[in-house]
């Protein structure tokens, strides 16, 4: 038989080889082609070509400029001639009646110095803007005839927009808008306004040296109190929100571990001889895991209302499924000999578990818990945005206003810092608590040295 086979072998071998090559070619060209086709489909399905039209560049500009700068509004109510000054135009950032920053001098004629020669004067009747290199723009808002503007001779430049009821000038130094009811100047500054002290605090505008001096003379408590209760940046609320988010992650992860551990024993083949019960337990884990954390969050938010507890429970329930699966697999891989050894010394069942089983699965258990603690910090941010708790809620609120982008940037920075800190902490704890992980780490580190020797 084999001889006959060998006779045919050359042709068959050739045929086999070319078949194999054909298959390889098909795979190597077909797979990328398939991926490319899919990406093209997605490109069309997501309407990527239309993306540029939908993209809002003005929004992008506001977002970027707002994250590193702020503006102070000086506005004059043209009906009762009152002038108010407020940072970002917000009430919490308003200067007290009669108070003003140095570049604004209040009086019969309010003079606003925008620096580099730019100056705006709010007169009793007329608003004047000195623009170096262009001239003086005068505008008189009247009730009956709208805004009457006088511009220097020549063509109107593109940065001035003029209509019957509105004059708007946008220069490097600032922005002036005059309408029938209101004349308003924006001046832009770099930085985050009032980050430490709001205007109503006696410590606003003091230098670091002066602050330290005051702190040394016994006002440290008051200074910290003013920072802590800052209404503009709400440091107190932000600190609480971060604490809530971390709390959600901690309670959810540890709670899930505590719930999943006993259940995992029920799902492990070597600890639970009852097949049907094992099957039920496993399906329960699968079900809990399959019902996404989004659904759990929605369901639990109905029962418990918004807040950190709901978030913690949502994480707890979802992760119970995952932990149950991982722990039961770890339990099935437990070495029987250690349990036998403990049994041989006359240990009772409880002691057998305590000294024979638990020490074996502790590394898996701890490393999974710590790993999930880190990833759940991220989940808690997301769940917080849905249920309304923690830093996720603050972030969504700040984004919804569509103007506090400096706060959004601040929160994003805090979130990234928080997650990276948890990542580092969980890695550090893993290395400290689990010796195996430390060994792996050192081996990974020795690699580059070895690679260096080779050439």
């Amino acid at each position, binding site marked *: 038989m084999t001889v006959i086979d060998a006779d045919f072998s050359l042709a068959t071998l050739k045929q086999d080889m070319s078949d194999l090559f054909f298959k390889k070619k098909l795979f190597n060209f077909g797979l990328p082609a398939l991926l490319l086709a899919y990406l093209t489909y997605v490109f069309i399905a*997501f309407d990527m070509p239309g993306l540029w039209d939908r993209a*809002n560049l003005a929004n*992008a500009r506001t977002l970027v400029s707002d994250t590193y700068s702020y503006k102070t509004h000086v506005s004059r109510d043209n009906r009762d001639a009152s002038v108010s000054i407020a940072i970002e135009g917000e009430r919490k950032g308003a200067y007290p009646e009669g108070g003003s920053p140095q570049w604004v001098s209040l009086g019969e004629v309010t003079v606003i110095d925008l620096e580099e020669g730019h100056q705006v004067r709010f007169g009793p009747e007329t608003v004047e803007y000195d623009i170096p290199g262009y001239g003086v723009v005068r505008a008189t808002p009247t009730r009956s005839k709208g805004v009457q503007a006088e511009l220097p001779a020549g063509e109107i430049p593109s940065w001035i927009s003029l209509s019957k009821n509105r004059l708007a000038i946008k220069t490097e130094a600032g922005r002036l808008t005059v309408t029938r009811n209101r004349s308003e100047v924006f001046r832009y500054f770099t930085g985050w306004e009032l980050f430490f002290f709001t205007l109503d605090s006696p410590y606003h505008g003091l230098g670091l040296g002066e602050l330290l001096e005051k702190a040394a003379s016994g006002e440290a408590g008051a200074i910290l109190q003013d920072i802590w209760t800052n209404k503009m940046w709400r440091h107190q609320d932000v600190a609480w929100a971060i604490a809530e988010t971390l709390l959600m992650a901690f309670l959810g992860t540890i709670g899930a571990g505590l719930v999943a551990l006993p259940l995992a024993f029920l799902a492990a083949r070597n600890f639970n001889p009852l097949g049907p019960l094992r099957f039920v337990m496993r399906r329960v884990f699968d079900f809990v895991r399959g019902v*996404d954390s989004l659904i759990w969050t929605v369901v639990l938010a109905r029962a418990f*209302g*918004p807040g950190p*507890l709901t978030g913690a429970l949502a994480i707890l329930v979802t992760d119970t499924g995952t932990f149950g699966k991982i722990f039961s697999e770890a339990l099935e891989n437990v070495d029987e000999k250690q349990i036998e050894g403990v049994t041989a010394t006359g240990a009772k069942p409880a002691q057998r578990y305590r000294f024979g089983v638990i020490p074996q699965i502790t590394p898996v258990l701890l490393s999974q818990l710590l790993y999930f603690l880190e990833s759940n910090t991220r989940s808690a941010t997301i769940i917080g945005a*849905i249920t309304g708790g923690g830093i996720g809620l603050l972030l969504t609120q700040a984004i919804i206003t569509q103007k506090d982008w400096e706060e959004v940037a601040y929160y994003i920075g805090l979130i990234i810092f928080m997650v990276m800190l948890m990542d580092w902490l969980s890695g550090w704890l893993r290395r400290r608590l689990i010796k195996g992980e430390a060994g792996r780490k050192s081996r990974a580190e020795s690699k580059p040295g070895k690679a260096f020797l080779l*050439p």
Partner: protein
Amino acid sequence: MADMTAAPLSTEQIRDQYSEMVHRKRLYGGLLLVLFVALMVAGFKTADGRNAGSFGEGITHVFDYPAEVLAEASEKLSEMPAHLVHFFPALIETLNIAAAATLVGVVFGTLLSLLATHGMAPSPALIPLFRRISDICRAIPEIVIALVLIFLLGGGPVPAMIAIAIHTAGALGKLFSEVNENASLKPVEGLESVGSSWGQRMWLGVIPQVGPNYVSYALLRFEINIRASAILGFVGAGGIGYELKNAMSWGQGRYDEAAAIFLLLFITIVAVDQLSGLLRDRLIHGAKSGANT
């Protein structure tokens, strides 16, 4: 040292020392446990206090909502197939977001990992930089980028895709670089000796070694990304999450729609879970048999 200079210990002393050690260990263990329990209880109390509804009240109502939904869904069981068909396109969109994000994430994750692995990076000095980049990408929750991008690009699947892709690139960058560390550098050196470029060295020398592991991690990531894309839909990025939010805000009378969406999402997640588990098993198994021959 101490053993050599000190007089030999009597059994009595050894026993005393041992029991003292055990006592101290137990004391520390006990203290840690007490601290831990206190932390859990205090944490729970705080969370309970800051929540809108309390745990005690809520726990009795946990199943109210699912029961209502199920009751209404079973009443209108005949409409269920129509709902399933109606929401299927939204499900496809969610899946597309996840798949496209995974693909893009794999490409960037691969680049990041190759640039951050010793022996493979073209410029070893920049390795810490690329590690930090992938750390930062990994640390940003998807929702953060998605919400900002929705403001810039308008609602729809693209912001969600970009957001998930960034996170995926960071997460896979880390996992892939761990895989890379275990890859042999010999093929790379061989290719280098015949004068190949960096791209060729990576594509022909490294990728074939790490491919199966990459695909296995990418599949795992795909599962996670489906969940993420459903959640992002809930905050306005389209797909099944958006439909769920709408169906829920209609409230009673439309619970059958919510039930249909729950069902679709559940089936999809379980199906993808099983499928990718199977595929990953085959990949790892295939890789092993390949190594043996």
